């Protein structure tokens, strides 16, 4: 159809003006409408009004421009989506254990019977296993060794040993206590001594560094023992290793806690930043935030005229007004901490970590980083 084929009247043109004004008519329609408009002042007036209306509409500010100017909403949405995706992923793991659901329910309703049943099962299993495991029967009946300067535990023994338990016998004056480390190797051995003993230190740091070989409970005990010697280079290195790489989040967190007194050191701060950015466990990330704040606080203390007052907030370890001094310095590692916290407060998938990071920034940062 062309303009010459069909002459439109006002009734035909009226409804099409809406679409002409927003360029949604075909070439044929446009030609026919324009032919009509050339001779019709009323329709030209209507078209002009339609154009004005659409122009008024198009200059209206959009809700998106006003409602998320800072991008906070987008960050929130991303983080919530990540949490939802995590939750979707978790049931797949749970399904494997669903067949045991009835057992759990039964046990929850009958705690007495459950405890008795578990004890009986444990006893039977233990008796049966003892017959088949040659080393376990005599495992803890080791001879006490006198530790001398020369290492008695060889690398080969370390590689093959299993640690069945660690006993603490702290002295009354709180000096480094005596430890008993029970080892299972070719011959069961009980190492007895303090952390001054090279063998004891070697065994404990070896256990901490080899998370795939030892039970998490034993690793936690080792960390507990080692934390009193955190200024020892070898021990600190083992703890940093555990904070970064241990498979168990409780052990990673314990390792971070053990580093509490040396948080001002650069290698420790690097490890904390790594945990902040990479650790999959929110509890560990929060612990890293706490320790980083503490490190800044410690850094700023010498410049403060007086000790900070105790805070009544839920984060007692942070002095509210203290470390802003540290942030004004040119230390690039401090700037990295602030940047990491800023990143975390916007994009960490866990809400508590975001809140904790924001609170930490408020505590430590100058106004422009809040």
């Amino acid at each position, binding site marked *: 159809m062309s303009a010459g084929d069909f002459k439109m009247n006002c009734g035909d043109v009226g*409804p099409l003006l*809406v*679409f002409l004004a*927003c360029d*949604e008519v075909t070439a044929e329609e446009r030609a026919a409408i324009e032919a009509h408009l050339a001779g019709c002042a009323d329709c030209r007036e209507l078209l002009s*009004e339609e154009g004005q*209306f*659409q122009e*008024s*509409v*198009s*200059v*209206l*500010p*959009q*809700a*998106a*421009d*006003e*409602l*998320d100017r800072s991008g906070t*909403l*987008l960050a*929130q*949405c*991303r983080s*919530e*989506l*990540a949490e*939802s*995706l995590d939750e*979707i*992923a978790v049931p797949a793991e749970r399904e494997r254990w669903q067949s045991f659901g009835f057992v759990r329910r039964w046990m929850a309703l009958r705690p007495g019977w459950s405890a008795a049943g578990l004890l009986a099962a444990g006893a039977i299993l233990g008796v049966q296993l003892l017959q088949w495991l040659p080393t376990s029967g005599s495992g803890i009946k080791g001879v006490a060794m006198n530790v001398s300067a020369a290492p008695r535990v060889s690398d080969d023994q370390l590689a093959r040993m299993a640690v069945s338990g660690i006993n603490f016998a702290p002295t009354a004056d709180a000096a480094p206590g005596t430890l008993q480390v029970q080892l299972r190797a070719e011959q069961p051995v009980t190492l007895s001594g303090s952390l001054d003993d090279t063998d004891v230190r070697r065994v404990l740091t070896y256990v901490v560094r080899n998370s795939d070989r030892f039970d998490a409970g034993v690793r936690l005990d080792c960390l507990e023992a080692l934390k009193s010697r955190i200024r020892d280079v070898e021990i600190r290195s083992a703890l940093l290793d555990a904070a970064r790489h241990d498979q168990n989040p409780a052990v990673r967190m314990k390792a971070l806690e053990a580093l509490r007194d040396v948080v001002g050191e650069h290698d420790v701060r690097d490890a904390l930043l790594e945990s902040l950015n990479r650790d*999959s466990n929110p509890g560990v990330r929060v612990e890293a935030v706490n320790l980083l704040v503490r490190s800044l606080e410690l850094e700023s203390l010498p410049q403060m005229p007086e000790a900070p007052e105790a805070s009544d907030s839920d984060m007692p370890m942070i002095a509210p007004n203290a470390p802003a001094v540290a942030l004004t310095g040119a230390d690039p590692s401090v700037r990295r901490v602030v940047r990491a916290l800023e990143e975390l407060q916007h994009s960490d*998938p866990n809400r508590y970590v975001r809140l904790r990071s924001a609170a930490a920034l408020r505590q430590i940062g100058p106004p422009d980083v809040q």
Partner: protein
Amino acid sequence: MADNAGRSGGTNAVLATVTSLPELDERSLVIEAQAGNRAAFEELVRRFDRDVLRLALNLMKRPEDARDVYQEAFLKVYRNLHRFRFECSFYTWLYRIVTNVCLDHLRRRQARPEDQAPEIHVNRQEEGTRDFFEFQREHRPALDPERRLMGKEIRSRISKAMERLSPRERVVFEMKHYQGLKLRAIGDALGTTEETVKNSLFRATRKLRQELGELR
């Protein structure tokens, strides 16, 4: 979270390890995500989520509703990604899901208005928000006060009138005038014909102009 190089388990492991995800094109990312690579899916989200949130905010006018739409839409995409067969672009498919989620929300809102918080009218001067024409003053010094006043009045009336449109009319009008989409694309997004979209736009425009009344 999976790492940035997409080493979390896609089938095309070689592709993912030699090329970082941000460098992959849309199609490769979708294929990786379909194979179960969570990092690839997250990269897709990051590429398009600004537009999605913007559309949701413009249509819903409330941040909390826009957040719900964002969540629901991307979770739908995640769950149904294996059904995507590249018959259209991923963006078009995503847009279709988002607009339909918005439509559902608007319909629910219309059905149960008593449960809803009032919309935020970003253009209302009396609510303390900024006036668009105020920003234009330096660039348009000839603009007379009377016309500015008229502009405010028109905006206020348009906002009120928009609330009276049906969900579909509202979505079509917003997509045409604020997203700048052609009617055919709007039809694609809503899963309907161009003719239906045209009717919705016509009705929406007519209702809005009736609301404007004497200001015409």
